[in-house]
């Protein structure tokens, strides 16, 4: 124990066993980049570019310009330009501070348990045991269910009078009387978080399991030969090896959880008294009352915040990677 440990970096420094690219048998000669080749590449790229342009960027730009206009259901015939008025309306809304606080709780409170439990499940599923395929299918099942449907299911499960959650907790003696989960500000957020954790664990489990399966057995065997224990192997061999997957997965999940109103909308609609409203459920509420200009302003602000977060997150991780 405690000796020199094989790391992904040391493995990378060793001479590769297989044929090197560009040398020996199987290597293709580099093709000249001609106008004809450029056209071919363009032809393959065109459908995807047109598709993304029409279905992503066109609505995005249309939505963005709505944020600067008085775009209201009460009168679409006069959607005049109002500058930054819609943004001022958002920033002066008394609901905003609570919504921002709830959004942070929602993202952090969902992400951390999802990551930890998902990682644990992935480690467990990596081992070989009977009916592993069945267990995998069962664990991955929630990811296939609609978020809104999950919201409705959990809404009934957490129902104070007829819900199965209270029934189970009473039977095992954890509570004496039914808890009105979704009716109390103190418990409503806990309930929606539990639902979201249940839903999102699966994604981490799938992604991390796939990454774990890409870790070559020879590295693990070498680490074992070098005397590394389980924890050390995990932290110094496995985690660095799948670091890229973990980084991207966490980034994607932060963005998705931030943009995921389905469960809250289905369970509480943002209530009681706005106590579970996050930015995106609030956006839905504003849209429903026909304030499309204000809703577009909220959407644009969310976009900017998430873009900034993504850039800082990736930069910070890159910096850490360089320092190593």
């Amino acid at each position, binding site marked *: 124990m405690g000796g020199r440990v094989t790391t992904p970096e040391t493995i990378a420094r060793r001479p590769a066993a297989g044929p090197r690219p560009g040398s020996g048998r199987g290597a293709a000669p580099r093709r000249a980049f001609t106008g*004809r080749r450029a*056209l*071919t590449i*363009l*032809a*393959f790229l*065109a*459908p995807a570019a*047109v*598709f993304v342009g*029409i*279905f992503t960027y066109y609505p995005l730009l249309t939505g963005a310009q709505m944020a600067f206009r008085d775009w*209201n*259901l*009460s*009168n*679409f*015939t006069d959607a005049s330009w109002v500058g930054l008025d819609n943004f001022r309306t958002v920033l002066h809304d008394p609901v905003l501070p609570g919504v921002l606080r709830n959004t942070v709780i929602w993202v952090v409170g969902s992400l951390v348990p999802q990551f930890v439990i998902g990682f644990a499940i992935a480690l467990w599923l990596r081992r070989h045991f009977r009916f592993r395929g069945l267990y995998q299918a069962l664990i991955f099942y929630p990811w296939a269910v609609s978020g809104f449907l999950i919201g409705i299911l959990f809404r009934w499960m957490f*129902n*104070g*009078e*007829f819900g199965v959650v209270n029934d189970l907790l009473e039977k095992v003696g954890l509570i004496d*009387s*039914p808890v*009105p*989960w*979704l*009716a*109390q*500000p103190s418990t*409503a957020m806990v309930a929606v978080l539990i639902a979201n954790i249940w839903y999102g664990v699966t994604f981490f489990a799938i992604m991390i399991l796939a990454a774990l399966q890409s870790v070559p057995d020879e590295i693990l065997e070498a680490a074992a030969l070098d005397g590394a224990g389980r924890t050390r192997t995990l932290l110094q061999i496995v985690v660095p090896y799948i670091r890229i997957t973990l980084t991207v997965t966490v980034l994607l999940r932060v963005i998705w959880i931030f943009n995921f109103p389905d469960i809250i909308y289905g369970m*509480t*609609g943002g*209530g*009681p*008294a*706005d*106590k579970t409203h996050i930015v995106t459920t609030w956006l839905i*509420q504003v*849209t*429903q*009352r*026909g*304030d499309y200009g204000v809703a577009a302003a909220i959407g644009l602000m969310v976009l900017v915040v998430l873009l900034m977060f993504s850039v800082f997150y990736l930069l910070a991780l890159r910096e850490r990677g360089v320092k190593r």
Partner: protein
Amino acid sequence: MTKTLRLLGAGLVTALLVTSCGSSAGSSDDGVELKMVESLTNPARTAVLKGLIEDFEAANPGTTVDLISPPTNSADQKIQQMLQSKKGIDVLEVRDTTVGPFTANGWLRDLAPDLKGWAGWADMTQQAVDYAQGEDGTWYIPYGFYGLSLFYRKDLVEKAGFAGPPASWDELLQQASAIQDPDAGTYGYAFRGGTNGNGNLVTAIEAYVADDLDKANAFKTTDGKSIFAAPEALTAAQTYFDLFEKASPPSSVAWGYPEMVEGFSNGSTAFLLQDPEVIATVGQSTAIKPDQWGTAPLLVGPTGKAAQPVATAGWGMSASTEHAAEATKLIEFLSSGEASTTFTKENSLVPILTSAASDPYYSEGPWASYVTMTNAPDTYLSVIQPRNVDWWTEWTQKADGDVQRVITGDMTPAELLAGWDAYWVEKWAAA
């Protein structure tokens, strides 16, 4: 090069195929196809509607109807997009809550000229005619009305020592409090604290100010002030919130329509204030037998009067339709005779035709309370709430949030009423 061009062509064709739009609706060589879209979609109702459409098509050869049934939650947004694009819609379900914005944007056709001299007006109740023929035009013909009555458990009321169901809000509080027994899983009142939770509180306030209520705008008293500023409104609000404190399930802060109906249907709550459409649902309950429940008229205030806030929806026509004559025929068909009666019966709606009053279906059983209310118009005032204003959805969102704030202790009933009064005064001044 030919190969590259072929590839480029294939790419473009793929892109065009993927992004191409559907064919436009309208006339075909064989006749006219009407596009019809409903809003309050549910599977049973859609089946009834399709049956009626088949009857219409059989009676009108050459005209077919394509019924579009978006999910209820997003239906009005979908309808709005269709109206905004000015194509693909001829006949639509217009609700009293959507008629305001739809007409403000010029999306609906005024049916008055099309329906001039229509024989169907003669068989319509005065209420239906009043709703159809507004001051600024005929934007839709109501297909039925929703109105509140009190669903109650006969056995629980009797067991608690009361001779009959409550007639007033005070009596409801008294009976519901007496029945409430959380340890036994029995609760007094199926409180609505979730979506549209403000509605029953407003109904209570209207009952308390009924003597001075402006029937044409039930959010105003006859002196032009908002009902929320009246001193009686505070008493009403306190009684209403006492119902939650003393006689309702704690989780009902978050209860919307499904939980309320489930709470009554599964036998755990003794009273439920709801529309007649619930009659069918409760009738299918396996937890409570038909002799265990009944309906009673809407609850009255201290002066012995109640205000029935009528809600409605109906069939209208888009301003951009190119088949006005055929669309008019369809609306006339659905709004008269057997088709109308079938639709109101199958969907448990208060009928729009006078002939329905003689139908035993409406004069017996759970419907009897509606007949009682219709026969006593001075006690049960039929009033119109300003549901057609542009800001109605904004109002319900604000009001629902405030009801929850009072229940969770973030606001007092007096603060709630002051806020509501200020809100409406400001809106009316700006309108």
